Every structure is written in structure tokens, then in C-alpha cells.
């Protein structure tokens, strides 16, 4: 593989991302610690989660330095998961409805 090229970057960037991941993890723990509830809780959890995941993939896994052909081949297929989530949520709502009607009469 003559075209293969090493991923060589200054060590400082890893330390900065590491620190950032620590801060984000602490922030998401604080969401629980201070009993933030409702939509604010869920959106904070998801924002911190996506930021952490993005930093890990982009910097630690070197994705931001790869070529676009590779990035798209790896990162686009997992978007299908959104469809699975949609199907799962529809099915769960329906199951909950039938369970409420037949098992917990009076709960509705």
C-alpha cells in the first residue's frame, strides 16, 4: 500500500479533546445530579451525548482527516438507524395502547 499515509498530529489536540470530553461528561452527570427534568433534561442529555460522540469520531478516530469518499462510506449508512427508531417508537406506542386497554382497565 504505497498510498497509505500515517495519521500524525500534534499531541496537544488529543489532550484538549480529552479535557473537553471530561467537561462534557461532568456536564451530563450534573444534569442528573441537579435533577433537571422534562424536555430540558432530555435535550441536554442528547446534546452532550452527540458532542461527545462527534469529538471521539472526528479527532480520536481521525475521521476529520480522512478523505470525503471514506467519511461518507462510513458515516452515512448508520443514518438508517433513524428509520429503525421511528418504526420502534410507532410499535411501542401501539403496544402500550393495547396493554393499557386490556391489562390496565381504568388506567386510561
Amino acid at each position, binding site marked *: 500500500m504505497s498510498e497509505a499515509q500515517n495519521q500524525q498530529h500534534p499531541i496537544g489536540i488529543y489532550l484538549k479533546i480529552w479535557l473537553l470530553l471530561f467537561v462534557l461528561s461532568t456536564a451530563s452527570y450534573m444534569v442528573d445530579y441537579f435533577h433537571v427534568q422534562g424536555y430540558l433534561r432530555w435535550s441536554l442529555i442528547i446534546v452532550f*451525548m452527540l458532542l461527545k460522540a462527534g469529538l471521539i469520531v472526528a479527532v480520536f478516530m481521525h475521521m476529520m482527516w480522512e478523505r470525503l*469518499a471514506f467519511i461518507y462510506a462510513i458515516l452515512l449508512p448508520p443514518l438508517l438507524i433513524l428509520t429503525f427508531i421511528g418504526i420502534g417508537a410507532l410499535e411501542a406506542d401501539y403496544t402500550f395502547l393495547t396493554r393499557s386497554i386490556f391489562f390496565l382497565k381504568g388506567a386510561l
Partner: protein
Amino acid sequence: MSHPVSTIPLHSPVLEPGVKGLVSDWSADQQSFKKVPWGKAMMWIFLVSDTFIFSIFLISYMTVRMSSPESWPNSSEVFALTIGGKHIPLILIALMTFILITSSGTMAMAVNYGYRKDRRTTFVLLMITALLGASFVGMQAFEWTKLITEEGIRPWGNPLGAAQFGSVFFMVTGFHGTHVSIGVILLLIFAFKVWRGDLEHERPGFLTGRKGGYETIEIVGLYWHFVDLVWVFIFAFFYLW
């Protein structure tokens, strides 16, 4: 008469950047993933398949939690610990999160020092990563023991609420723990290879017979970072939600 199509010659060593590069890479013969060693591409493709496996676990978790008319146990309280007479919610899981992130940081640095051909530092960083990974598995064993013996949580039911809590917990964290354990074994094997100088002297590996190189450390690193990545999602959806 000739019609010039591209200004860059056919066998040019210069690769086009951006979207133009995307098109030319995918329409290239021989290979589409330029500058990516085959082992790395294969590891990424494996990780995509593993992403789907963990997604399916988390989606089934969402489905059973949404469809259960019974109340879901409060994970903040289930995973609380009393340390020095002080009751701290979810502290064990927070510690495990920090340990895994730290191990990801040392892994990223091990990859970096590997490419610098610094054998000693790479070995030490890989061993630290393996040690942090092993302590993560140890804390998980403690967590499982506490949940089984003290809280009475079983895969088929528990005294705290919806029965599905136990099955989801043991399946998801069990699969993740298995991944961490495999990662620790991989790290130890490759730390040994680095220490022995297999990668530096390009000795053939025992499994593939291909000559060694420091890019294998980056490939092991990809797996390790993925284990951390999965934990980010488990932490958010199972423990915090």
C-alpha cells in the same frame, strides 16, 4: 479532435480535495479509499456493523420502555452509592465514564507515539489503557454483583418496577462489557508486540502473516475508541434518561 475532460492527468499522484475528490475517488479503478490502509478500512466496516448491533439493542430498549405500563426503575437511585456516609446518585457510572474517557485519551496518544516509532512510550501508554479498561470491567463486575445480590434484579423481573429493566440492563451492559474485555486482551497482545519490536522490525503477524507496522496500533485504537463511543450512548440513554 480531443475534448479535454479533466485538467488533472489520469495517473497523477495529486488527489483532489472536497466533493470533486469524492467523485474521482469513487470513480477510480483499483481502490476508492485513498490513503487508507486496507486493515483500517476493514476495521471501520466492522465497526459500522457493530454500530447496528448496539443500535438494535438500544432501540429494543426504547421499545420495551415505551410500551411498558409499569413504571421504570429510577436508574439514578439504583446505581447510587454511599461513600463515607454520603449518598451520591449514579456515582459509580460517572466514575466508569471518566475511566473509559481517560483510557481513550491514553489510547489516542499511544497511536501517536507509535507513528513516532517511540517504542517505550507506546508500550507504557498501551499498558495504561489496558489497565484502565480492566478496572472498568472490574467496576462493572462490582455493579452486577450489587444489583443481583442486594437489589434482587434479575433478567426476568425485579422488585423496583418494570420487569424489562433487568433484561435490558444485563444484555446491553453485558455486551458492552464483553467488548471492553476483548479490547483489553487485544491491547495486551499489541502492547507485547510493541515491546518485543514486532512492529518496528515488520515481523509477520501470527494470524495473517502480513508484515507488522504501527498502523495496526491505530486499528486497535479505532476498536477501543468505538467501545468508548458506545458507552457514551449507553450512559445517555440507559443511565441518564
